[in-house]
């Protein structure tokens, strides 16, 4: 029987959650026995070519591209895991949700205390995805099957969740693995 496939992506995140996935140490080998990593920054596969059992997503939705990637994941994965605080509640990037986008851009590129931008231009290359009005937690954009918060979530938590999922067992994190920081 073919191994179940897992895909991962980092949207508006810092890759910290991915580091945490790798942080399961030697168990990563065991994991590699259990599943096959499909589209993921870990192996640089860019496009879905097969259906995946699990999609793991780090980071919230901050721009149009994030939304398209997320929708693509939803389409191609049976189960979506929202991994980490940015994915579950917007995280640090969502701090801009309290400021209108226009002010945000001006602060970031024109007036901020550390800004050096002699051209006084806000980046506006047609290739750059447009920014959303605010940062959205993933479950506000597509249906999410499982949330695992943490900044980043502990490697042990990720491990336990994956093992439970793959074995069709209920998830029961022991104290200390569910955390928001």
């Amino acid at each position: 029987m073919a191994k179940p496939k897992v895909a991962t992506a980092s949207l508006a995140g810092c890759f910290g959650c991915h580091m945490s996935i790798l942080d399961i140490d030697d168990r990563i080998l065991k994991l590699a026995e259990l599943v096959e990593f499909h589209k993921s920054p870990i192996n640089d596969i860019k496009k879905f070519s097969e259906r995946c059992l699990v999609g793991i997503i780090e980071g919230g939705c901050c721009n149009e591209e994030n939304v398209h990637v997320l929708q693509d994941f939803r389409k191609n994965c049976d189960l979506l895991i929202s991994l980490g605080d940015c994915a579950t509640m917007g995280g640090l990037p969502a701090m801009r949700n309290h400021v209108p986008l226009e002010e945000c851009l001006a602060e970031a590129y024109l007036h901020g205390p550390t800004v050096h931008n002699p051209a006084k231009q806000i980046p506006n290359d047609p290739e750059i995805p447009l920014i959303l009005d605010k940062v959205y937690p993933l479950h506000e954009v597509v249906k999410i099957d499982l949330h695992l918060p943490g900044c980043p979530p502990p490697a042990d938590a990720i491990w336990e969740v994956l093992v439970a999922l793959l074995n069709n067992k209920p998830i029961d994190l022991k104290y200390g693995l569910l955390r928001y920081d």
Partner: protein
Amino acid sequence: MSDFTFTIDGVEVPANKGQTILEAADAAGIYIPRLCWARDLAPGGHCRVCTVLVNGRPQSACTHPAGPKMVVEHDTPEIRAWRKNVVEMLFVEGNHYCMFCEKSGNCELQAMGYRLGITTPKYPYMFPQRAVDATHPDVMVDHNRCIACGRCVRASRDLDGKNVFQFVQRGHHVRVAVNAEGGLGRTNLSAADKAAQLCPVGAILVKRVGYAVPVGRRLYDVKPIGSDIEAKRAATPSGK
């Protein structure tokens, strides 16, 4: 000797006249979740996380007096769900960025989220606009994290005798305000005041003491909130 007994989830609990259900439960080593209650403060009845059924009717355990032969239901799936829902409401009402909050690890709201197994609130985040008051040299108020539990109001009024804090506005606009036009710095609050110490979350913080305890050794890193109370029960021979 106790004045009378009543039951919580079928367990017989001794109580004295004047004791609340929550106090009697504490003494018996039964932890009823709570957020706005604090020892030494009159109960406020704000958070409703301590809701129990008393003879079938919902009541807040922190305010309701224990009575002889009362039948209290506390740890049922139904009540657990209500509590979880209310705590989730508190999370979406404010802006809780635990990842950089000084209170993280020592925060009662966060610890309650852990204890009740909240991975993410089912309610939409409100992302409200709220202010930070840094006018005081030693204490700051970050309204983003305030859960309107009223501890600071009660502590300042009843323990410090200062009335530095009070609720203003009403409904979902309610917020804690300070007794001066120009912010906390214009009040007579001192960092040693109870009002500056009792905030359950990271809304009132004494400056320059944050992040002192390393991750792993903070209040709720290892054991769930309420474990201290439950430990009492485990220790008494009659408890099980």
